[in-house]
């Protein structure tokens, strides 16, 4: 009996030793923080905002695809299908979806967290908090603008122009009432973009600018200039907004064009003098094989090459004067036997910053808006500023025409992702350079014409399945 007590005692002691309450089941949060308590001060807010930039650098957005797709669909480039990438260069999209939809909305979600932060509970400099929220407004506008360019139905025949389907303009994060948003019209999207940029410009303060790797008041003006120039094709009254934004930047941004001597080096220089806004990329952001450098010149993928042909339409190699640094051997040449863009995004490990806006664009925007406003003299001045700085002498162009402006834009921004949007906003067909290389599937001998449903990406199957309010684009 005595033994029994002894063992009962031992048993009870052991049981007590290991009897665990519910509190012992609390998991450790080692790497993450609870969302509700994660933002407490201005620094926290800035770190959250950083992830918006970080998400913009993803391969599926500005890290590669947005830039490549802006050229590979056009007369500048094609996919040699070396690794089967960028087969979409023929614009024959699979109705299951295409484009950066998901990644762009991931950027927008961050901006909405920043904008929606309860500033009354944040410690730190209130003006800096406002500045960070202004950055978020600007990035939100840019992200929606990119979506609109890619998915909006405004250029598709019969879809209604300004009143056609745009994209859902999302201004909230995790709002239960807005988890299945419908598409706005193109006009309402443009209005929201302009409103966000207006807020951004008023909220940001230059004293908090650190480098062009972060959004600034100038960055917001640059987005406004590009977006309203583009939207002018839908609503011509917006050209004047583009005009004033571009001229504001030329006068006030402090960014100066890079001269001919510095041109090649500017593509490996972080925050070069002409940069208004760029995305920072460092060696540790290693995109490896999936980076933009590897798709442009290999050695591994190397699918996206300069499109050359012998037809009437000029290819990229045809348009540069012999002394134009932009067509020089440092910029355009041969790699693995293909005509190749050598000078832009040259660093193979992907550590070149990705410049989204540089001051040269503003001169060409000002030229175009001046011409559209009937001021040919101003237009010619702004237009000739660019070849002049590239060492081609003053008065390169004799007259400012839409063709010359477009040609100069092509020369200046080749392989920077603008060409497709320039051609479409000017109502142009995709030019035929070489039918065999362009591989267009309708086999009519020509790439898609302006107004074709292929000028907009299809909305993805997963979005349509998850969002009952989503409408597929025309033609898919």
């Amino acid at each position, binding site marked *: 009996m005595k033994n029994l007590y002894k063992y009962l005692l031992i048993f009870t002691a052991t049981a007590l030793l290991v009897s665990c309450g519910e509190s012992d089941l609390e998991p450790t949060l080692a790497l993450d923080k609870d969302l509700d308590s994660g933002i407490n001060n201005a620094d926290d807010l800035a770190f959250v905002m950083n992830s918006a930039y970080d998400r913009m650098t993803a391969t599926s957005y500005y890290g590669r695809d947005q830039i490549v797709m802006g050229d590979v669909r056009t007369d500048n480039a094609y996919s040699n299908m070396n690794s089967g990438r960028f087969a979409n260069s023929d614009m024959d999209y699979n109705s299951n979806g295409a484009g950066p939809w998901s990644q762009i909305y991931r950027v927008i979600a961050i901006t909405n967290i920043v904008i929606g932060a309860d500033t009354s509970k944040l410690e730190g400099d209130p003006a800096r908090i406002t500045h960070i929220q202004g950055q978020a407004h600007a990035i939100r506008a840019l992200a929606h603008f990119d979506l609109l360019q890619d998915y909006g139905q405004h250029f598709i025949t019969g879809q209604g122009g300004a009143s056609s389907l745009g994209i859902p303009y999302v201004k909230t994060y*995790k709002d239960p009432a807005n988890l299945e948003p419908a598409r706005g019209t193109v006009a309402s999207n443009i209005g929201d973009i302009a409103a966000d940029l207006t807020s951004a410009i008023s909220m940001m303060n230059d004293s908090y600018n650190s480098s062009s790797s972060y959004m600034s008041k100038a960055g917001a003006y640059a987005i406004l200039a590009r977006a309203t120039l583009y939207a002018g094709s839908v609503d011509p009254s917006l050209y004047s907004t583009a005009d004033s934004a571009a001229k504001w930047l030329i006068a006030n941004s402090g960014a100066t064009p890079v001269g001919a001597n510095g041109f090649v080096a500017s593509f490996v220089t972080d925050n070069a003098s002409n940069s208004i806004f760029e995305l920072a990329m460092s060696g540790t952001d290693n995109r490896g094989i999936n980076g933009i450098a590897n798709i442009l010149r290999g050695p591994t993928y190397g699918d996206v090459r300069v499109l050359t042909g012998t037809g009437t339409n000029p290819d990229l190699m045809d348009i540069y004067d012999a002394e134009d640094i932009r067509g020089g051997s440092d910029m355009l040449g041969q790699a693995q036997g293909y005509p190749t863009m050598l000078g832009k995004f040259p660093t193979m490990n992907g550590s070149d910053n990705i410049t989204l806006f540089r001051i040269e664009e503003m001169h060409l925007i000002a030229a175009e808006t001046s011409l559209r406003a009937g001021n040919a003299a101003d237009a010619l001045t702004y237009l000739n500023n660019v070849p002049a700085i590239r060492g081609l002498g003053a008065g390169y162009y004799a007259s400012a025409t839409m063709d010359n402006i477009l040609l100069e834009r092509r020369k200046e921004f080749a392989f920077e992702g603008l060409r497709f949007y320039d051609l479409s906003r000017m109502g142009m067909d995709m030019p035929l350079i070489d039918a065999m290389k362009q591989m267009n599937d309708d086999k009519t001998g020509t790439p898609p014409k302006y107004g074709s449903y292929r000028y907009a990406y299809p909305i993805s199957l997963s979005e349509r399945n998850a969002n009952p309010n989503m409408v597929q684009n025309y033609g898919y």
Partner: protein
Amino acid sequence: MKKLSFFMTLSFMLASFWGFSQQVTITGNVADDNSLALPGATVLVEGTSNGVTTDFDGNYSITANVGDVLVFSYVGFDSQSVTVGRDRKINILLNSSNTLEEVVVTGITTRNLKRSTSSTVVVDAAQIEGVAMTSPDAALQGRVAGLRIVSQSGTPGSPTSIRIRGEGSITGSNSPLFVIDGVPVVNGSYSPLLNDLGVLSMINPSDIENITVLKDASATAPYGARGSNGVIVITTKSGSAGEVKYQITSNYGFQNYAMDERPMLTGNQRLELAAEMIMNDFGWSRERATNNILGRAGYRTWDAGGRVDGDWENAVKVKDAPDAVYNFSASGGNATENFRLSLGHRKTMGTSIGVDYENVSGSFSYKKKAGKVEINTSTRVSNSIQNGQLESSAYFAAPQMTRIFMPAVFQPFNADGTPNINLETSIFNTVYIARNNISRLDGTRALSNNSLSYTFNDNLKFTSRYSIDYNMTNSHRFQNKTHGGGVAENGYAYQSNRRNFTWAFANTLKWDKTYNDVHYVSALAQMAFQKNKYDSISASGENVAADGLYYVGSFNTNETGYGGFSDWKELGYLGILNYSYDDKYIVDLSYRYDGSSRFAEDYRFGSFWSAAVAWNISEEDFLADSDIVNSLKLRASVGETGSNSVGLNSYQSLFGYGGSYDDNGAVSPSSFGNAILTWEKQAQYDIGIDYSILDNRVKGSIVAFNRKTSDLLQSVPLSLTSGHSSQSKNIGEVENRGIEIELSADVIKGDNFTWNIYSNYATLENEVTSLAKDAAGNDINIDGGTTRTRVGEELRGWYMRSWAGVDSNDGRPMWHVGGENNDMSTVKSWNSAQQTLVGNRLPTYTGGLGTRITWGGFFADANFYFSGGNKVYESWASYNQSSGTRSLLSYNGSQKLLERWQNPGDVTDVPKMRWSSSSTLTGSATSTRFLYDGDYVRLRDLVVGYTVNQKATERLGFDSIQFNVKGTNIWTWVKDDDITFDPEVSFGGSWNIYTPIIKSISLGLNLKF
């Protein structure tokens, strides 16, 4: 009379004299009535505590006095008594008292089969030992009704995946729980690289006594929140009484791909088709088109060099890859203590170049009885090194990708025999990669299992068990700077260490008692706590200064580091009650209260239970004397288990701090979160019959089951505009219904010749019965590009466009319009066709069929596995079967393309060649064209062996000598002629690029002494 009494006295005295003076050692063997050894049988000197148990081969050795009575007993057999006389060797054949009286080991309880109410299947050591796969659970294929297992990769050391009774979860795990010697352990694999090392492969198969598969609620409910996917209970070998016995086994085998490899286009064939692309789309002559193609990258050099094809098939294959396994064990002991130790070594070459695997293991187990206390301890430590290559997708550095993607116009080797790395293609020469890169996993697993029992009396026993499961994996990846993925970084190195440590503590009180000889009651109470912690740290660097440096320390540019930590904890209280009336009527109840750290505080604990009844009809008077029926049992069970296999911390809305921008921190939400997340519940219903008839020569069981998973963890798709793609919710229900049949028959049961046939068969019907609803009250269907999940249908049934063949007039591909009404009219635009539900992803039937023949010392064993009713999809068909540039310019095509349409009137399934990379235009976009019948039959095991006769064995000084030849997967029949890959694909149903599943032939030698 006097004489008689004198002699009697004398003999009595003599006997006494002998008895006192001659304490003798008796040895012998205990076997069943089929002469199969009975390991673990008890040999006891009657009236004393002097006893031993037989070893694995039924041998025993005991010291006794002449005149003592030895009692031989074994659960399920009638005891026999023998008085010790002059014989020093006593061999005993025990007659089974009833064949159903085996025991059922559930990892928590051990129960007489007669008093069990569950569906369990035991696979014993004979089937596990010498298994050609490195993972011991591979032995289960075809042996257990309703259990499906796939290997997927033939890379040695790779994990297997198991499903028991279908799939009940959409986003959670469907893998069963693994229990080793009573302790739940981690399973799965480590794959920080692009090869996988299964943690179960670090358990030496020859240390396993048996594997029990628990399927129904009455067996799995005691595992509470982890039991719903079934439980696989592994029991390891323990020591045996008697003198120390040694065993050496060795197996040496050769491995090859199980299925013949697919033929790919030769250079000339590819050229012919490529020219047709231009002819068809630009109207050129064949000559002009051929010349155009010959001027292109790849073709140009090949043509100039005399059109010699590169043999990539054989460049990346290792023929007759050797597999060598050696095991040594020793065991011995006496009535109060015993031990077993084992050492194992395995070295296996992969059938893909650059792949090998080596495992060393050691174990020691020890048992000591000291009065009422029993101490058990076992320790097993194992180290596996897997030198792998990339697999699981079309990685350029994956040798198996090269096999089917690399065009024959490229040469793998230079004239001097070195790998040719000047290829005008983006695909790497994987021969160079395999020789120069490193993708190594080095895993160490240590299991320590310790228990202390105290027996209060015959009825009450307390056991406290403490165990440790320690897994440490080092991984190392090195990419050379000369060729392949490391060129851009001028060399790249990555190393990581991952530690996964689990400790478990359980206290169990068991009580049982029989009242009035007919009321048998047993009860169990248990408290179990388990805690897991997981650490990982990794680093990488670029830009190495010189060749011959492989570790991160020498790669000093763009160094990155990562460190992480996570943990989970589980706490459960369990009660089990079993009541049997005269072994006729049995009632079984269990209840478990389980808590897990994976859920929010208010949803952390749950209750799980089971109730089961059984009726041994054969114990009733009307059957007791039956000549036909030996045993007959009707049983039914119902219960609720759970599955808490939800990602860690996923109930919380969290900020992740892993990102960076401009070398500053970047913080972003890592999950959408759902504070009311809890486990999936599963109600399971079983009804079955177990029978044994005709002198126990035919026995089997029939079971019908229904598994209803509710509160299904559903990854509910979110509109991507939210910035997230999905949110986990506990919504939805899935049912798995089926019938399982097991049958075994001794067709011939002679003294020198026996022939047994065994088989199992299971059907499965999987149906989603409820899903999450949107604001408007409609089901949120989970529709994807190849599968969909909707109410009333199979979980993730195949959902794609339906292929309508090639238009014989113009050679263009066609699809059925499809859609909800499955419109069978055809269209030539893939975008215009709609997805349709086109077939089952899960097999509707699976089974095994085997036979065993023994004839004298020879034995032969064959085991077939079959499965079907499902479809399998060829993932990379849009690359290998494209009638366009993907197969003819970028990569390589299958020879199936030669059947392409050429002229009006041609009837074929391969569209005409087009100058296009588009998968829709060339007919290679996702459709039923690449969805095949998944039915197959495979000769899983074929063993022929010979046991050398006793006389010769003894003359050589051994206890037993056995030779065997074992074939694994040596024959496969596939229903669909169009399948060019192994139909044993992953549970997702899609084939992917892995080292093909192997077939092997091995020679084994088993020595005991």
